[in-house]
């Protein structure tokens, strides 16, 4: 029998595996629930005890993307036979499609605002972090502390001043306003995280580039950026997740043009009774972009979370 520091014993491995899998199952249940509900009929969706095996239906998705009005049999008669598969689903419920819903627009708003603020945050954050890491900034420590202190209370605590400010600046319910707001909230965390990553990059790389005849800026984007990629990717994921899921500001500051998906999804309920499948469908689609983004950057994220310990 030999013992090893890095190689766990077989029994330990089994226990660890069991714990990880159970934890994954527990956290995945709500997610699976939502995804399943999206494909249930309204009746199944509120059945108790919950139905686990059910006949899948795309009604929720159709309802999500359409506005419908209740129609009398005469009106249905007058409209003629349904000409698309989704028309048919809607008519079975005694309704007809009156137009597309606003979910598409709201989803697009989320994409524009979420990715826009993440991009802006990364550009500003990387440059600020680089400056804090490499240059003699007067009052550097105080500034860094001040930046962090903006996160010492929940952002929503300053909702009222921001609301008033936005109203006076005409930023209420605009994409620009929301992008700026989310960037401002995310920037402090980004600067701190990115500074950590950039501190880890030996300054000799830039000095070597400077000696080789590159300018300071070239050294920054040809040498520092590629090496900070891991840090930038993981920070970007944090920023996107916050901006994507943010609810409170979105409710307060947007209502139409710039409304994002989170405040919109609950409003789906009210159209015709409790349409849980449509809400669940909206939530499911809403999950996709962050999931794809995270999976794309997964490799960086895992290495990034260890804060450079692995990189060397």
């Amino acid at each position, binding site marked *: 029998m030999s013992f090893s520091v890095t190689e766990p014993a077989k029994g330990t491995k089994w226990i660890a595996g069991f714990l990880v899998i159970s934890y994954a199952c527990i956290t995945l249940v709500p997610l699976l629930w939502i995804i399943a509900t999206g494909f249930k009929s309204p009746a199944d969706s509120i059945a108790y005890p919950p139905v686990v095996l059910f006949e899948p239906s795309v009604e929720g998705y159709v309802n999500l993307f359409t506005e419908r009005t209740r129609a009398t049999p005469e009106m249905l008669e007058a409209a003629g036979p349904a000409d698309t598969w989704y028309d048919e689903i809607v008519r079975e419920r005694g309704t007809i499609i009156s137009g597309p819903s606003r979910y598409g627009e709201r989803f697009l708003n989320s994409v524009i605002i979420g990715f826009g603020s993440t991009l802006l945050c990364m550009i500003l954050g990387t440059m600020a972090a680089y400056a804090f890491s490499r240059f003699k900034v007067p009052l550097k420590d105080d500034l860094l502390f001040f930046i962090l202190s903006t996160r010492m209370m929940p952002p929503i605590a300053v909702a009222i001043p921001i609301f008033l400010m936005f109203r006076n600046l005409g930023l209420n319910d605009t994409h620009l306003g929301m992008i700026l707001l989310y960037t401002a909230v995310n920037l402090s965390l980004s600067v701190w995280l990115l500074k950590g990553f950039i501190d880890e990059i*030996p300054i000799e*790389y830039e*000095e*070597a580039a*400077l*000696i*080789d005849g*590159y300018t300071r800026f070239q050294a920054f984007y040809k040498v520092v950026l*590629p*090496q900070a990629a891991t840090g930038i990717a993981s920070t970007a994921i944090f920023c996107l997740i916050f901006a994507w899921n943010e609810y409170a500001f979105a409710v307060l500051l947007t209502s139409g043009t710039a409304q994002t998906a989170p405040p919109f999804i609950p409003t789906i309920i009210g159209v015709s009774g409790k349409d849980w499948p449509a809400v669940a469908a909206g939530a499911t689609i809403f999950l996709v972009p962050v999931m794809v983004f995270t999976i794309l950057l997964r490799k960086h994220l895992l290495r990034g979370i260890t804060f450079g310990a692995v990189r060397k």
Partner: protein
Amino acid sequence: MAQIRIENVRKDFGSFNAVKSSTFTIEDGEFFMLLGPSGCGKTTTLRMMAGLELPTSGEIYIDGEEVGQKPASQRDIAFVFQMFALYPHMNVGKNISYPLRCQGLSKAEVTKKVGEIAEILGITDILNTPVGGLSGGDRQRVALGRAIVRDPKAFFMDEPLGALDAEFREHMSEELRALHDRMNATTVYVTHDQLEAMQMGDKIVVMNHGVVEQFGVPQDIYDWPATKFVAQFLGSPAMNFLDFNGMIGSGGNEVRLNDIPLSVPTSIEGTNGAMSLGVRPEHVRLDDTAKYRGRVKATEYLGTTQIVTLETANGDIKARVGSADKVRVGDQTGLSFDPRTITLFDADTGVALRSQANEGVLNYG
């Protein structure tokens, strides 16, 4: 290729004075060693020459042109860092060609040049591998490749072998010196290893606490140290010092230690007071007829020689004698010193007294 001249260069970091008014000249094509203990300002001096740090005052001339306040990119020099600073996101070939790619050379020219360099360094077969998995020696070669590919005016190297293990250092230092002899490029090399400095250097400047203590060819520095610091820093074991109170006049060639006369090289400077007589262990002989006496305290066997530590009236000294000589701890013995090799130091200032033997090689910065 170029001559490099440092004149009254000083560097302050805030209130800390890292380099104090240094002056020395590196001739065209020389392999020049900056030697000194940790924290003495070697790296700072080198970085000022390279333009990575700007001098607080003083001038730096490369090829006759004053470059003290110019950025590194305008000095046309190459720098090899201790940790090599190979770009981890590029493969070997890309790393070597990186300095060329900002010069607007054609792809074919770059490839040709990189091929030549790889040939010289014997790394042709690894051009396409990533730098991550390379051995220390290969990293070193790639770093050198990146330095020489551009044909710069001078090479600056900051402890380039420091990251390698002892065995490999030996090998790489030979390789490095051979490369220099082949290209004859002015090279400034920082090290804290006195053996490395003496083995590889055409000239050495010895620094301590930001002060240039002496510069010159290795043999002169070893034989005729300008200060007690230099005498102790070079050589292993270091030079012996016999402390005594006495006097020597200008033109005198004898000092008296405890009333025993000892011959020394004819002095040019006279002094009166506390002095140290410096003599290297290999110039101490155990000679029973000699008047100056010592008692053997310890012996240390080194193969072909042995180091004998003796207690004398003026402090302990070490002698390097043949390992066949029979020496026993506790023995009383006479000691004689080769009079042509002795340096006298002023004990208070630590500075060597000028004599006809060391005249002309005591170059202080």
